[in-house]
Structures are given as C-alpha cells and as structure tokens.
C-alpha cells in the first residue's frame, strides 16, 4: 500500500515537472532584464518554499512526539528535516548560480542567501546532535526541542538579516524575483511547488520506513543480547 503511494506520488511529480518544464522552456517568454537565467526561479523558489514548509511541519511532528511519546513521530520529524535540508541545498545552489550570472559573483552576503545559509547551519547542527545521541528517546526529545528553537529562531534570523542588508547594502542590488511577475509567468512556479511537495512527501515516506527499520534493528539487537 505504502509502496503504491510512493510510486504514484513520484510518477505524478515527474509528470507535472515534465509538463511544466515544457511550459517553462517553450511558452514562458524571457524576462526583460535577466534573460534566460530567470527560469531558474522555477526551481529556486519552489525548493525554498518546500524546505521551509518541511521544517515547520517537522517542528509540529516533534511537538507531537513530546506530547505523545510516539517514536514514529520522531522518525517523521527527522525524515522531513532531512528532505527539507536537501531542498534547502538545492535552493542555495540554484540561487548561487543565478547570482553568478546576474551579479557576476558566485556568492554574496545578501539577505536571502545569508539567511538560508544560517538555516542550513542550524539544521546541520540538528543532524549532528542526532548522530551524537545513542538512546532513541533522548535523541527524540532533544531533537524536538532543538527543532522548536530552530523554527522560532529562523523567523528572527530572516528579519534581522533583512534589516541588516537594508542598512548595509551589499556590493550588488537585490533583485526580488517573484514580486511583480506577469500572471502567465507565475503559474508554473506553483505547479513546480506542487510537484516538489509530492516528491518530498514520497521521499519522506521512504525515509520514515527506513527509520522504522532502524528501530526494529535496535529492538532485535537488544533482544539478541538479552540471551
């Protein structure tokens, strides 16, 4: 049953992405000032929104664990955070490549890239913490608390870095892609977001099953050592 859901989600996501890519390359006109590179926004922004959605859903899953003490909720939280981290990496890499063309440099400490990088660092820390704890319940508990802190902090990080960059403009102008797009250009963005969301859900389902296997292995090992 689960396998069927995963396969269906992947196929649907693949279909939407393929149809969308056709639309993006052939039907959407080039943006006036940016040229062809602007199409990267159709991966950059959906990946960003997917990853943020994931981080916050994972936080609620962690809170669910703290309330219900069900280790499956912790597995779900960890899986979602891992998949979101992958999408966050996509966001930063595509953002950097876009910046290479628009600004001529691979990296700049503009508000969005910096905030994203901080997000990445916080969640690397999350996984580092998980790896350092052997006991499953302690790991679940501390991960959930870290997740809550991270999600509250991300809002403050965004706002403060944004204001910092308004006061100290970097060497490049920040071009806010996404605001003021023509109606025909915006729709593929949301379709891609839907596709990414489906892909992320499929990956989360696979990872959660793997976490369940890990729990089964731990339980069997404890049982085996009891002899």
């Amino acid at each position: 049953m689960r396998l069927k859901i995963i396969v269906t989600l992947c196929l649907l996501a693949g279909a939407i992405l393929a149809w969308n890519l056709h639309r993006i390359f052939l039907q959407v006109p080039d943006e006036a000032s940016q040229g062809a590179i602007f199409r990267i926004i159709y991966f950059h922004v959906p990946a960003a929104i997917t990853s943020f959605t994931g981080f916050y859903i994972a936080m609620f899953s962690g809170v669910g664990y703290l309330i219900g003490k069900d280790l499956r909720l912790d597995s779900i939280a960890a899986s979602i955070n891992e998949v979101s981290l992958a999408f966050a990496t996509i966001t930063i890499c595509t953002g950097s490549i876009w910046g290479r063309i628009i600004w001529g440099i691979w990296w700049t400490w503009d508000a969005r890239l910096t905030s994203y990088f901080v997000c990445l660092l916080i969640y690397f820390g999350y996984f580092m913490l998980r790896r350092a704890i052997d006991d499953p319940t302690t790991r679940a508990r501390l991960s959930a608390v870290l997740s809550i802190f991270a999600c509250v902090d991300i809002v403050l990080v965004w706002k403060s870095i944004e204001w910092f960059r308004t006061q100290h403009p970097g060497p490049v102008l920040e071009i806010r892609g996404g605001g003021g797009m023509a109606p025909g250009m915006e729709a593929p963005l949301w379709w891609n977001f839907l596709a990414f969301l489906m892909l992320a859900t499929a990956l989360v389902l696979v990872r959660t099953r793997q976490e369940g296997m890990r729990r089964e292995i731990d339980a069997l090992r404890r049982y085996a050592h009891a002899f």
Partner: protein
Amino acid sequence: MSPQNFTFMFYGFTVAWLIIIGYVISIALREKTLRQELDRVKRMVEQGEQSRQ
C-alpha cells in the same frame, strides 16, 4: 538571451537534478545497508533462540 545565460541556466537545472538524484541514491544505499543489518540481526536472534532450546 545570450548563450552564457542559457548555459548557466542549464547548469542551474542540472545542479538541482543532481542534488535530487544524489539524495535518492544515498537513500537507496542506506536502504541496502539497513536491510543487510536487519537480516543479520534476525539471523542472530534465530541462532540465539535455537541455542536456547
């Protein structure tokens, strides 16, 4: 619509796909190790139970 723009646009899409594919491959590898580990531990448990009987 300079050629350089198109090239980098393809780099961008390629990087995104490579990250997704790389992540899927890492998940698949983890699945393989987990299955091997699970089989090994199950065999260990069976041996333990047999030796007890």
